[in-house]
């Protein structure tokens, strides 16, 4: 395979400095440097297909190992029975359902960036939304795996689908799990189509810049004969806008339906009216934190310093902080409703979370998810990469614990005191499968970024052009790009 454009950009050699330096001229860069040329954007993204840093291959190896651990655990569980995951007749759910909710949550940030911020014309999203949208698709695929892992008889999972059969037996449409199946299926389908549709102009650029090998065939097929004519662009814009509007509805209803798995049941601690908005915002929050993690990794691994720059990171961090605060509010509201409610079982449940067997984890999650995001409020930390890396991981640990704290203490402390069960610590099988799911998700992301354009070339070119025009037409004596707006 030959790639036309060679790596001849001097700024790339200075990346180590740019990577760890606090703010590389962030004051002058608004979203993207106005000095970036179209050819440079093309060459940078095309080059990302060929020469990632060596750490990329280490990361692939680690991911494969993690998947191996998960698959081994699942194989053992499949053969022996779900009992090896150490659940009980009281704690029937556990890490699997918590992780399912977590991964559906991670998927939501992609939709926020690619669809919602597209509608609001937030330009800064243009360098990050592509890999965010890929994260949506892959996180949903990971979440789907947890449904399979969780089922007692996963070989009968097709019973959940309303397929025509001679017995006239259908799935039970009253059950929130069936709603789940529909909404997650629709969301996965639409987000894949949306991801692919948005990539078509970029795939055509790949097709035109690569001359042989499997990549040429792949991109030629996927670009679907894109020529970049006016008519193509017009149809493309309409299709993209339509899909983005549809996807927003799906994302909001998606996690609302996931929350009704809990809110529709009468288990104290689950039966809470405010769960749907609480879940949706929590999803956006944890998803954005995950975006920051992947942002920093991709920036280094694929040498995207020019595009995934500090100004974009600052805006991403601010968005995450805002979402964290909304989530905190809804979290407090949820506790307040339980507190003021007359349901003694639910109130005991709340006391139990704060003081019972899981109190340590509950307070840890509250600290991580409510207190830690305040670091993001400080301007000096907003673009500090090591700080943001650690912080975004901590926030996601906190948000995973949040999901686990919704499930484990709640099931252990239900209406019926005889069945209280506080010491079902998940076995290595559950932890192993959770571990493997992170490997699976990361592997998909890494492969995607190596094969497809992880940042959107055509939108970056639009952005660079806009910034260049702004600089060109700026009044004399006044810097055109004066900080972030």
């Amino acid at each position, binding site marked *: 395979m030959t790639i036309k454009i060679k790596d001849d950009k001097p700024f790339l050699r200075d990346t180590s400095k740019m990577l760890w330096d606090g703010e590389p001229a962030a004051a002058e860069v608004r979203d993207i440097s106005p000095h970036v040329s179209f050819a440079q954007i093309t060459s940078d993204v095309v080059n990302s297909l060929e020469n990632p840093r060596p750490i990329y291959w280490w990361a692939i190896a680690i991911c494969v190992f993690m998947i191996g651990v998960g698959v081994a655990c699942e194989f053992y569980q499949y053969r*022996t*029975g*779900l*009992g090896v995951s*150490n*659940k*009980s*007749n*009281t*704690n*029937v*759910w556990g890490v699997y359902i918590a992780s399912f909710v977590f991964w559906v949550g991670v998927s939501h940030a992609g939709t926020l960036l690619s669809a919602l911020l597209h509608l609001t014309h937030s330009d800064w999203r243009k360098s990050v939304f592509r890999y965010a949208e890929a994260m949506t698709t892959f996180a949903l695929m990971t979440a789907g795996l947890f449904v399979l892992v*969780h*089922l*007692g*008889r*996963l070989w*009968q*999972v097709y*019973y*959940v689908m309303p397929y025509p059969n001679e017995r*006239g*037996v*259908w*799935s*039970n*449409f*009253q*059950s*929130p*799990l*069936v709603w789940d*199946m529909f909404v997650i299926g629709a969301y996965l389908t639409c987000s894949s189509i949306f991801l692919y549709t948005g990539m078509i102009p970029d795939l055509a650029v790949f097709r035109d810049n690569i001359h042989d090998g499997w990549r040429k065939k792949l991109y030629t097929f996927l670009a679907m004969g894109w020529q970049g004519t006016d008519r193509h662009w017009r149809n493309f814009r309409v299709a993209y806008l339509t899909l983005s509007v549809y996807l927003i509805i799906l994302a909001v209803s998606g996690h609302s339906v996931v929350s009704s*798995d809990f809110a*529709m*049941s*009468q*288990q104290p601690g*689950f039966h809470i009216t405010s769960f749907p908005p609480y879940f949706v915002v929590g999803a956006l929050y944890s998803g954005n934190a995950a975006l920051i993690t992947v942002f920093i990794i991709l920036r280094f691994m694929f040498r995207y310093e020019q595009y995934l720059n500090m100004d974009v990171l600052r805006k991403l961090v601010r968005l995450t902080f805002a979402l964290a605060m909304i989530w905190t509010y809804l979290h407090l509201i949820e506790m307040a409703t339980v507190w003021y409610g007359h349901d003694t079982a639910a109130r005991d449940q709340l006391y139990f979370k704060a003081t019972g067997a899981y109190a340590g984890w509950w307070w840890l999650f509250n600290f991580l998810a409510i207190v830690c995001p305040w670091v993001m409020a400080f301007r000096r930390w907003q673009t500090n990469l090591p700080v943001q890396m650690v912080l975004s991981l901590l926030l996601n640990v906190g948000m995973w614990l949040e999901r686990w704290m919704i499930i484990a203490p709640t*099931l252990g402390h*239900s*209406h*019926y005191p*005889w*069945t209280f*069960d506080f010491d*079902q610590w998940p076995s290595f099988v559950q932890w192993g499968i959770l571990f493997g799911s992170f490997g699976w998700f990361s592997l998909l992301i890494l492969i995607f970024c190596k094969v497809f354009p992880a940042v959107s070339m055509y939108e970056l070119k639009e952005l660079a052009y806009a910034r260049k025009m702004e600089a060109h037409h700026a009044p004399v004596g006044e810097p055109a790009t004066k900080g972030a707006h």
Partner: protein
Amino acid sequence: MSIANLLQNWSRYRDTHPYGGAKPHMGYKWAMAIDMDICTGCNACTVACYAENNLAVVGKEKFLNGKSMHWIRIERYWHDEQDPTDPLQLAAYRASGAGKHFPDQGAHFLPIMCQHCEAAPCETVCPVGATNHTQDGINSQIYNRCVGSRYCNVNCPYKVRYFNWFNYQDPATENAWPEPLNQQLNPDVTVRSKGVMEKCTFCVQRLRAVMVDARTEERLVREGEVQTACQQACLAGAISFGNMLNPDSRVGKQWMEQGVNIALDVQVKNERVGDNTPKRGYRILENLRPYPSVMYLEQVRESAV
């Protein structure tokens, strides 16, 4: 559920009250009453259930780990939050003169099995419709339809559903019935496979046998014609079971005595005007309104008299 059901009968789902109204019971409504004043807590019912329904014996370790399969269990409740095994606490309690206590009085106990709720929370949440209400008022469980999502257990307020965490079918696996003990399994009852939910069925295999006989003779099942295994084994006769719609049945009389308007399923208890007889009947977690089919008659304790 089929397309026809969805299109035609959707609005009929629980639009009326479970008893009476538009939902006929085909002349049967199986129900139970347990008189706690008679119950001695001897556990014979639990043993009988194990024998009748092929319940897996999981062993001490799994039992303590919450993986037991007893469809009917005897729950013990001590009077206070004190530890009855602690001699210091016990001595202090006796010295305080606060009344009789363990071991002077003993524990409260409660046999509990699936309550066969008329508006069962478990039925609505099953994604595949593996648990349903039969027309004779039983909450049925279809093992070969169950996919093991365990949502029914989450929504069951009594937590009387038991999941097959391991394979208890195959004699080669741990805790299955070893040869030749598998010969004693009840041939009328399925041995459940790995990954399905199970629970008390009111001994549906016995019910169906007598109902088929009765239908052949074009009559309803008579009182006393069928017993559940737990009822049969109860030496004190604390458990009564039968067709509640039969006015001659013991269980029907017991329910009536407790002031339950069966047609409306409203329990007026002691508030009924002009009726000053004290009522002992209660149904567990009645406030959640699942309309359980098991009535408990309260135990009268010496200390309470």
